[in-house]
């Protein structure tokens, strides 16, 4: 990381320098997590120090081009380009590049954008090293629908930071998609922060389908005020190594956090999917449902904590993980945790790992459906039930496409 410290010094004129420096200090102070309690250390998705260095220092990708019809969205990010649909400005939504954002542009907003430094080691590093990013500012009381598509070169390494500010009483529907073009083994990190005002209601849909050689590191955090609601639908399909971490910070009373996540790991992919709640506000609720499908010689780990602090009285938390292990060389692991620090709460977690139920297969086969299709139908239903709730056609189609293309080799 010595190289990175030097790089940080070159950013002295950056308005966010203080924020970057503090984040880097937090990164240095955070211990490297080890999982000695588990005998299978090698199976966790480990991001090596050299990979982190590549991400922090950044490596430019090969220039690429793509057909305009392939990707859709009213916010298009490709490489360093940012294209915005006119409708956004008309709707009063402010969207601009984070790297061009100066304190004097809007001191109040600047302070809000850089108010959260995160809690995880790599998250600190991304907060210190980001070179590109986006600020989406949705004023109070607005009702908007956004679709953002981010395309990067597969051999590009770097860190991004996106901050979405949802004003009081706003209603936001946000579909956020990440793809790559070309080949390469870039290390791509990103922090996505949502700052929700009082009574803000957000439906956030996330899709990651990058090339199978990329390392993708993502931290999503929701800072939630009183009565705010956050519904999160996430799909992880691409990349070679995926470290996806999502954690709410429910400071406000009666905040409501719901997560419906799906991941598909195939070939040699390794996926570490973490969904947690950190509940401080009274009467706050968190419900997390995650589904995973493992094929090939891939591995999926689901981790999630329900963390109810001393003051979060009358709160509740629920975490539920289910993984379909559909291959004899695959590996599935779940590590749900409950951290309950006050007794006036209700919390639960459940997790299960198994193959497709043979009785369900038998039923479908008795209706004349061949075994491969039967398995795909059941798997499709297993993951589809999560994402269909979002009521977004593109996401539902994607899930069906992924489920149908699964190569299931498990024996019964």
């Amino acid at each position, binding site marked *: 990381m010595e190289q990175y410290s030097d790089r940080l010094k070159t950013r002295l004129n950056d308005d966010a320098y203080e924020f970057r420096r503090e984040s880097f200090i937090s990164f240095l102070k955070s211990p490297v997590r080890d999982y000695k309690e*588990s005998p299978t250390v090698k199976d966790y998705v480990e991001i090596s120090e050299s990979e982190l260095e590549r991400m922090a220092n950044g490596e430019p990708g090969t220039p690429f081009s793509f057909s305009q019809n392939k990707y859709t969205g009213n916010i298009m990010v490709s490489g360093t380009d940012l294209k915005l649909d006119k409708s956004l400005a008309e709707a009063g939504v402010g969207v601009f590049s984070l790297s061009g954002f100066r304190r004097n542009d809007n001191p109040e907003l600047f302070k809000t954008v850089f108010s959260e430094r995160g809690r995880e080691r790599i998250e600190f590093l991304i907060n210190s090293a980001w070179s590109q990013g986006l600020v989406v500012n949705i004023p109070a009381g607005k009702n908007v629908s956004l679709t953002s598509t981010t395309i990067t070169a597969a051999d590009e390494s770097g860190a991004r930071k996106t901050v979405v500010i949802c004003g009081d009483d706003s209603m936001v529907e946000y579909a956020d998609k990440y793809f790559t073009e070309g080949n390469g083994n870039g290390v791509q990190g990103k922090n996505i922060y949502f700052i929700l005002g009082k009574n803000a209601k957000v439906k956030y849909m996330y899709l990651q389908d990058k090339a199978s050689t990329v390392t993708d590191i993502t931290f999503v955090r929701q800072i939630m005020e009183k009565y705010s609601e956050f519904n999160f639908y996430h799909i992880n399909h691409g990349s070679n190594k995926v470290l996806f971490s999502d954690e709410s910070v429910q400071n406000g009373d009666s905040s409501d956090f719901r997560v419906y996540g799906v991941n598909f790991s195939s070939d040699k992919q390794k996926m570490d999917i973490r969904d947690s709640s950190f509940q401080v506000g009274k009467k706050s609720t968190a419900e997390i449902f995650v589904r995973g499908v493992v094929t090939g010689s891939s591995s999926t780990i689901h981790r999630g904590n329900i963390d109810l602090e001393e003051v979060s009285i009358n709160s509740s938390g629920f975490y539920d993980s289910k*993984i379909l292990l559909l291959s004899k060389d695959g590996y599935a*692991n779940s590590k749900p945790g*409950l951290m309950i620090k006050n*007794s006036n709460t209700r919390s639960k*977690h*459940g997790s*299960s*790992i198994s*193959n497709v139920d043979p009785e369900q297969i038998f039923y479908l086969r008795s209706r004349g459906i061949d075994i491969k299709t039967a398995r795909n139908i059941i798997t499709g239903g297993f993951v589809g039930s999560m994402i269909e709730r979002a009521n977004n056609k593109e996401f539902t189609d994607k899930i069906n496409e992924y489920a149908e293309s699964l190569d299931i080799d498990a024996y019964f």
Partner: protein
Amino acid sequence: MEVEYSKEEEMEKLLEDLRKSSVRKEDWEFHDNLKPIYSTGIGLNKSVVEEISEIKKEPDWMRRFRLKALEIFLSKPMPTWGPDLSGIDWENTNYYNRPDDVKSKSWDEVPDQIKDTFTKLGIPEMEQKYLAGSVAQYDSEGVYHNLKKVWEDKGVLFMDLDSAVKEHPDLVKNYFCKAVPATDNKFAALNGAVWSGGSFLYVPKGVRIDMPLQTYFRMNGEATGQFEHTIVVADEGSKVHYIEGCTAPRWDKDSLHSAIVEIYAHKNSEARYTSVQNWSKSVYNMPTKRAWVDENAKMEWVGGSLGSKVTMLYPSSYLRGRNASTHNLNISLAGPGTVKDTGAKAIHLAPNTSSRIVAKSISIEDGKAIYRGLLRMNKGAVHSKSHVQCDALLINDESQSFTYPHDEIYEPTATFGHEATVGKIGTEELAYMRSRGLSEDEASSMIVLGFLDDVMKEIPMEFAVEMNRLIKLEMGKLGSVG
């Protein structure tokens, strides 16, 4: 003649029974002013280990094993992933205390003072009533062991491990530290270096013992360590139920209990291990308990973890043969100021194996109950099944509960489920029971004992009664139960 039923008389009788059975903390927190006849003094080094081996007149292989284990112990760092263990004072702990020179098969030969202690704890009485045999250990050495003749005739061996090393060295060598090698963890290495006492139980092929066998451990000294090593071998087709009970007086300086329990359930055998631990609140309780379960064998762990300052205990079963199964039932009670980091491990290594883990915990006042477990299904453990359930009850506002399960599945045909709940006594449940005429105390008491019922009914009756009393006693301070 018709007996007239009188409700008042019945109540009076019940109350009288309750008065008689009331347990007081002093009943087991007393300590004797017995000076050990031999002690290695405080601190641990090579010469202390050699001294222990010397006074036990052990064979050379054991002496070398102890020294190797000491090296491992010194080289391993303290585990930092669990509760705070900084209170363990390695320098000022006494690693070996011998209470007396006698190892007896008759109570009459046991020194009076020690006999009194065990009589107060009710050991001889229990033995007469319902045990097939028992061993009593006081500080570092076993002071009494006895086995009913009928079992002795069938070839059952039950004695303290020191005697077994001398009398059956080959048999002991076959099993000693095979399931729990000294390299396993820091505390297992410590036990390897300074172990003393513990039981050796061998049940030959086809022998099915229908009465339980018991060892009672008593730690008397201040700032001492008890490092017993227990080996239970259930040979092919045999059946055995082994029980352990532990107590210690309360001292100002903390003591350390770091035991090893190894259980070998051979083909078609059934082994059950029950332990009720009620160490006083100055004891760090760090045992390592593990079972090797072979084809068609059945292993059951039943545990009650009530006392101690900090407990870290994860009884594990290695399911090594086809159709092997394990049940693990555990109750832990985290009283005020204590930490219970308990759980279970089941490692599925063969086809059609099954495991079931039920863990219940109660946190009182600022007590902290933690469930930490590992469930692993290796590739090839086809059609294996497992279910893990951990429930926690928080009694006071400041009570805390944490759950950290680790579930690792490498086998696609395996089925695995895990669930956990944390909550407090529901107001709706209370309101319902009160509407049926129960007082609030009676209602909470009923809910707490009902919460523990799954595990309680698996515990032998005498122990269940003792545990019920102990739980009531711990909770009685809050006026909520009992």
